[in-house]
């Protein structure tokens, strides 16, 4: 009886873990220069020591970017911006919900 209860608990925990994984959040914002002008065509990507690297997002004509479905995690993410292949920005961000993050470059 106790063994069966344990199995049920494990199954529920697995389901909860799966739904937690499925519940990703959006990370969005703008990329601008020191004159507060939008910077288009910038590659914005995130990486995490556990999950690896996200698919890239590209800033539009207004400097806006969005990364969908980023799973929350206790350990921080690293948000990076690239000018072509060159890294120009990196910061540490925590994702526990939708995150608005504006990047200023100089």
């Amino acid at each position, binding site marked *: 009886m106790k063994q069966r209860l344990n199995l049920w608990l494990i199954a529920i925990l697995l389901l909860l873990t799966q739904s937690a994984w499925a519940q990703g959040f959006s990370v969005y914002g703008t990329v601008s220069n020191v004159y507060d002008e939008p910077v288009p*065509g910038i590659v914005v990507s995130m990486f995490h020591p556990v999950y690896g*690297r996200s698919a890239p997002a590209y800033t539009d*004509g207004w400097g806006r970017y969005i990364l969908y479905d980023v799973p929350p995690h206790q350990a921080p993410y690293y948000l990076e911006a690239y*000018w072509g292949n060159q890294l120009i920005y990196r910061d540490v961000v925590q994702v526990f919900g939708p995150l608005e993050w504006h990047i200023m470059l100089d």
Partner: protein
Amino acid sequence: MGTYDYAILGAILCGIIMVFGGIVLLYKGAIRLQVASKDPALTVEMFQNELKFSTRNPALGLFVIGLCFVALSIYFGQDMAATAIEVRGRAENVDEKVTILLQSQWPVDTHEGRVHQVVRPQLDVLWVVVSAPGYKPHYKSFARRELKRGVDFGSVTLTKATPKINPNPARIADLPAGVESPPMSEGGSFGAGGPL
């Protein structure tokens, strides 16, 4: 490759085996083109009996069936080929790395918030975004009928929006020991950058 692709390839293979097998059998003398039966060995009716093909030579029938396999496979395989899109064009007046983004949408209907629908993605409209760092992106749409010829966005002149931004070490956070930034080529492990 999915089941459909394997079925198409299998049908093409069958057709080729039938044609080449027929040639081998003719060469070995197992069948002869001169041998004719009283009744038609094969009758093919197409386009609602507008076109009728009949032969009394069983050997010829072997070739026709084989060729039908190949022709029909190529015809039904066109959908498969439609997924391969040739992209052509030229971005003028750009000193930076140019990226071409292809975007489309497949809306799915819901009933009281629930979704259960099989989608066979077909490109009705494809958006081509020509993007380069520091330049305003250029957008161009292509309708489905245009995609068969590939995507040719022609010559695009991008407008410079901001001067080049050089890396500033103060804006690049250090990584803790043991943590390395994976290369961009490894992107796609989670999340998705998408259209706004």
